[in-house]
């Protein structure tokens, strides 16, 4: 078995319920988490809508998968890059997003925020730093 760890970035650019992309992305991330790679997620354009608070899908007959983002830390997915410009264009701030945390095992299991706000230029740097990019 190869010991090589690759950097995987899952890029999310779609709103959560209009298409199946967002939910599929999350499923693939959770399955992929079993392979011990260096996994990050990026949220830009309409993808930032996936992380908003207060989603309630009862009346549209779809599963509300937004709580699952808060479990990602348990699967060692602890880097969620969110693009500032995409939030601003949609009238959103960090306050509108769920609080997503992970326990840092290298720091006595201290709870730390998983969401990292980045500028568009920083997001481009994050993308250029990957071995594999999976788009949804």
């Amino acid at each position, binding site marked *: 078995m190869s010991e090589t760890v690759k950097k995987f970035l899952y890029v999310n650019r779609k709103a959560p319920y209009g298409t199946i992309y967002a939910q599929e992305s999350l499923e693939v991330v959770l399955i992929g988490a079993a392979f011990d790679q260096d996994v990050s997620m990026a949220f830009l354009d309409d993808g930032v809508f996936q992380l908003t608070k207060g989603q309630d899908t009862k009346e549209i007959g779809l599963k509300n998968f937004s709580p699952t983002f808060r479990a990602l830390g348990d699967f060692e997915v602890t880097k969620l890059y969110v693009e500032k410009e995409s939030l601003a264009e949609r009238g959103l701030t960090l306050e509108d997003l769920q609080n997503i945390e992970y326990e840092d095992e290298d720091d006595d299991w201290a709870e730390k925020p998983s969401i990292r706000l980045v500028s568009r230029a920083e997001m481009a740097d994050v993308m*250029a730093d990957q*071995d594999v990019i999976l788009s949804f």
Partner: protein
Amino acid sequence: MATLHTVNKSPFATQSLLSCLAHAKAGDTVLMIEDGVYGASAGTGLAEAVAGLGGGVTLAVLAPDLKARGIDAARLMDGVKSVDYAGFVDLAATHDRTQSWL
């Protein structure tokens, strides 16, 4: 460490091409395929934005998709490279990673 970006939707229907160009870095290639090829024509409402954003970025278009849609190569913006399927494979092989803008 360059990236090959592919865009497969018309820029008149989605933001994908503009978002792609805003994240592409010098040395990268943006290849327009399928309905993405509508973004390669000169003289559209988008041509200026497309040309202006892509500094240092190579723009390319997949010729069979262009042909299928009846777009003459003469209508392409200046500097847009036309590639066939083999050229697409070469681009994928000569870049470090591929990123699809769906």
